[in-house]
């Protein structure tokens, strides 16, 4: 399954909104088959902040582990955020090649 992160907004900044987005995604997540991967697509996102991502991607990582796959992005804020998130979670995200 592919999730367009831009559906939650193009400017993903606050911790509060990241938490709300994760709660809103629960229903969809429950319907995801246990063996299916979840691909995160950043293509519509203009800015991703570590606070927002920590409330959304970090708990997703806890739940899905290596079934969470990130699609490549050339957005600088996505790169900066993922780098810090990996350090905080002590985990290297699976990133699909172009």
């Amino acid at each position, binding site marked *: 399954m592919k999730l367009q992160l831009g559906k939650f907004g193009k400017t993903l900044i606050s911790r509060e909104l990241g938490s709300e987005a994760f709660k809103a995604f629960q229903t969809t997540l429950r319907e995801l088959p246990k063996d299916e991967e979840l691909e995160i697509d950043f293509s519509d996102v203009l800015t991703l*902040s570590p606070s927002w991502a920590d409330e959304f991607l970090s708990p997703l990582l806890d739940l899905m582990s290596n079934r969470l796959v990130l699609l490549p992005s050339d957005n600088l804020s996505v790169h900066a955020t993922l780098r810090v998130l990996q350090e905080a979670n002590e985990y290297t995200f699976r990133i699909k090649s172009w």
Partner: protein
Amino acid sequence: MHSLASICIVLGGICIVSGFVIGYAHTLIMEEKLLTITQASELLGVSVDTLRRWDKSGKLVAIKKNGGTHRFYREKDLEIFASDLMKFASEWIEDGIDFPGTFYCPTSSIFNARLTKMEYALMLKPGFEKLFSLVTLVTGEIGDNSFAHNLGKWPDTPGIFFGYNLEKGVVVLADRGLGILETLRQVRPELPSHVVAVEVAFTEFVSGRAPEKRGNGLKTVREVVVEQPIDLFFISGDAEVRMQGLDKIFRVTRGQRVIRGCLAKIEFK
């Protein structure tokens, strides 16, 4: 209606000091459309009474035609007056002095809306087609931090100052909140000083909102500013962070003044 945020975008290279005097030669005044005090108050986002007070104190002197009592203002002068973002932010957090309301974000949702507006404008600035997202990230993290750490705890005025001038490449943020030291002492009571607290905030995964897992916002801000053509000046208490120029090093020093809350100036050329 005009907004000062958009006006500030087209301003450039102007610095203003207190005691700003509006109105020059009579002939010049005759050629320009003057705004009434009500129109000026709407443009600046302050009350008519505030404008009267600023006129009396000399902070923003009005024009009085032919010795009359009605106050008028030139639009261009109001734009210039509103362009000194650091002055407004510093005076507000140090002395509680009023500033144009267009820079005031009482809630995080208003801050997010204005941040998105800035982001779209910055995307159109030549040379910022990619860098815009990092300037937005740095601005967003610092602004969001103010709201997240002071929610329900604002000592007096809730909300933040958020002003920017994209032509000059400057963003100013300020809050009259608890500041970094008091916030982090809620989870690290042993922190000895503002300097150590600010250093921890910018270098460690620590949150002042226990039991929330971690705070990674200011750490990311530091990493982005070190690597990118973005400068940062940040103060909380008497702790100062200056990351400027080509060879940027993160260092927290003790400054001359002690301010409440936080004040940040982000610059990008």
